[in-house]
């Protein structure tokens, strides 16, 4: 098990900036309002029978002013670069060259979208008999846009953020689906807590409106089809609805934040992650229990924000784990935002910090009884992120005392 927890003598790590661009809207107020109204944005028709949570349109110009920059990116990078800008704005460090020149970036990323016309064109030509040895080469040489590669490379989300927002510290990109988001937070937290770093931008972005991704997940029959239902109500109709979202956070040592007069939304106390073997039923739930036990003591007013996907058997395993902690009201980001893969964990941390700073957990949206009402202000929220196939992460977000 790998863990990061503030140890005695180590600095507190504060969440001082949050940037959200999701299917529910842009910015903290729009997302918060939609959560309060239990408003879910799903498209059951555009990709039928598959269901997606499409991005609520944003004006990219406001965070990515150069059209040339926008053209160099595909949607997933534009969403992420946009959300990263919102996070820097939220932390009050946008354009602050002193801070941006040293900020450490840890980004959780997948890969970029393919050109479906090129792919389909090659395959249909082959189906019609094009079989010269160099056929694929020639078509790719003539049909692929040179800049598409850069829009596909995982580390070019971080690269674009650096270019557009002028970040000049360090830059690391973690891949590996859901748990990459947890590991990004874990490594950034441990570097700040140990004094290796003062301030970091972490997060991820995902474009769920992509048929090439649906093919990949359809291989494993993971896509939710036909009819939307809350994550916990999908047991007999399992699957995830891909969501589009960018979620970025500015993490900062308490001392660094105080020195510049920044106010925290909450503190990130611990992030832990593991890789359950998932060979037999119960393996994943056991790993979640181990991670739960590794988190610092929870004696405050607690809640859980889960990134459960709706895919089985992972979601049932997680529900079993949650039942063992029924005193903690649960909320599912998958129900409200869809499954945003690498972004789901940073999104969970963002919503935990937002809930703590606004003095209330957002309302339940579930017919199965897994999510219950919560009265009063949460002071400790555990973010749970269990991947649809592999990888488990957990974080503790707490009110700053």
């Amino acid at each position: 098990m790998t863990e990061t927890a503030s140890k005695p003598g180590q600095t507190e790590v504060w969440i001082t900036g949050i940037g959200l661009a999701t299917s529910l809207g842009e910015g903290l107020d729009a997302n918060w309002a939609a959560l309060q109204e239990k408003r879910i944005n799903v498209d059951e028709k555009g990709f039928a029978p598959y269901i997606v949570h499409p991005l609520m349109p944003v004006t990219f110009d406001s965070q990515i002013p150069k059209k040339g920059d926008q053209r160099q990116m595909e949607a997933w990078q534009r969403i992420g670069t946009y959300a990263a800008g919102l996070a820097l704005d939220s932390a009050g460090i946008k354009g602050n060259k002193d801070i941006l020149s040293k900020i450490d970036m840890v980004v959780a990323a997948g890969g970029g979208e393919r050109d479906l016309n090129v792919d389909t064109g090659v395959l249909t030509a082959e189906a019609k008999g094009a079989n010269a040895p160099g056929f694929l080469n020639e078509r790719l040489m003539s049909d692929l846009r040179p800049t598409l590669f850069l829009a596909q490379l995982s580390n070019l989300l971080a690269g674009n953020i650096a270019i557009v927002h002028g970040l000049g510290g360090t830059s690391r990109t973690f891949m590996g689906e859901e748990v990459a988001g947890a590991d990004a937070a874990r490594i950034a937290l441990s570097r700040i807590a140990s004094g290796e770093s003062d301030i970091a931008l972490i997060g991820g972005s995902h474009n769920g409106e992509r048929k090439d991704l649906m093919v990949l997940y359809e291989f494993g029959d993971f896509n939710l089809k036909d009819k939307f239902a809350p994550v916990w109500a999908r047991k007999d109709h399992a699957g995830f609805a891909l969501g589009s979202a960018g979620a970025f956070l500015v993490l900062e040592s308490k001392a660094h934040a105080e020195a510049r007069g920044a106010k925290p939304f909450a503190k990130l106390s611990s992030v832990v992650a593991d890789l359950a073997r998932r060979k037999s039923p119960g393996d994943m739930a056991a790993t979640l229990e181990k991670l739960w036990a590794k988190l610092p003591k929870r004696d405050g007013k607690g809640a859980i924000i889960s990134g459960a996907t709706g895919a089985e058997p992972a979601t049932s395993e997680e529900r079993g784990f949650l039942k063992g902690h029924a005193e903690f009201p649960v909320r599912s980001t998958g129900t409200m935002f869809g499954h945003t893969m690498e972004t789901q964990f940073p999104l969970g941390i963002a919503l935990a910090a937002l809930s703590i700073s606004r003095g209330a957990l957002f309302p339940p949206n579930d017919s199965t009884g897994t999510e219950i009402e919560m009265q009063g202000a949460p002071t400790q929220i555990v973010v749970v992120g269990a991947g649809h196939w592999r990888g488990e992460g957990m974080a503790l977000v707490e009110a700053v005392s």
Partner: protein
Amino acid sequence: MTAPRDKLGRPVVVVTGMGIMTSLGNGKTDNWAKLVAGESGIRTITRFPVDGLRTTMAGTVDFVSVDPFSSTGLSERMAELVTEEALDQAGIGAKGDFPGPLFLAVAPVEVEWPQRRELGRAVGAPDFTYDDLLRISGGGKYSAYHHRFMFGSVAAHLAETFGTKGSPISLSTACASGATSIQLGVEAIRRGETDAALCVATDGTVNPEALVRFSLLSALSTQNDPPQAASRPFSKNRDGFVMAEGAGALVLESYEAATARGAKILGVIAGCGELTDSFHRTRSSPDGKPIIGCMNKTLADAGMTPDQIDHINAHGTATPENDKMEFNTTSAVFGELAQKIPVTSNKSMVGHTISAAGAVEAIFSLLTLEHQRIPPTINYETPDPTILFNVVGNKARDARVTAVMSNSFGFGGQNASLILTREPA
């Protein structure tokens, strides 16, 4: 060798196991013999048809079989083999029970053409749309492809095979990925989170589309004939890098833990540094400041001064821009020493192993320290008169080497450097 902590009071991080594979062969012994003999692993591609391609050669690893073949499958198999070699040498933990985390540098993963073509054929009609492909993808027939093309799949396989602890990290910092994997391991040990870390970097992505993508960016050499002469770092007639495959694995340990169990110490990771360039997606800032800063940070991290570095294992891709930039930035950091310190580029022989390069070249640097012999930069027939490096041209050179700087620079503004030494400073 006495100090368990470095000048900054952190645990000293040592290397106790190494495994390597390149187009030159499998393992340290074979690779080192061919490397110092000046052999090239670059050859005309036979894995797939090269008709219609501008670049027809690469440093492929053709001696490892993977069935069904995929670039990700090859990356995984190479990673497994180099890890076995590194663990054999380190003698750490027990079989399937490595006492620390895994940091894996791996190329981004996506569904590949053989699998896409299989889908296309399965539609069974001459005319179809992408929706038809999507419709036939489910039902369990292709479930193995889901697992294969998860970004985390290679790391999950290695973690399960070798029993590394915790959540394995798959990372990409483009051409700096291998160096970043080592840096993450060093940091975890320095923070005291673990006594050991397994750092692996692998890249098996010589496939038609990857070649085309780099080709369309005009990054690749097109000097196809003879292929062995294509990669010409620091030469006037260099025209791009040569794609290559390979993998490297390093077992890192705290000096204290390594000596406590009587492990043989192969070298020290004395310093690491990285600095982002926000100038452009594929080009370095013209003033070179991010690279200069990266090298300076690495020296500071090692608590060393330029005059203590007596060999530079260059990024040396042989693209017109990189090599010139690397000389200019190295000169800014090292002053006149930049023209005296022996410099070499392993890429002249093994090509650019992209995601693996930082680890592959760190291992070659450690072997250089061990053998006190610097591998040559081959194809150095027409030196670029504006690059005044003391290039170890064409023939290996015996030299007293105590500290090596190994540089990696990548797309997306990724710069990372390592300093490797024989013994703790």
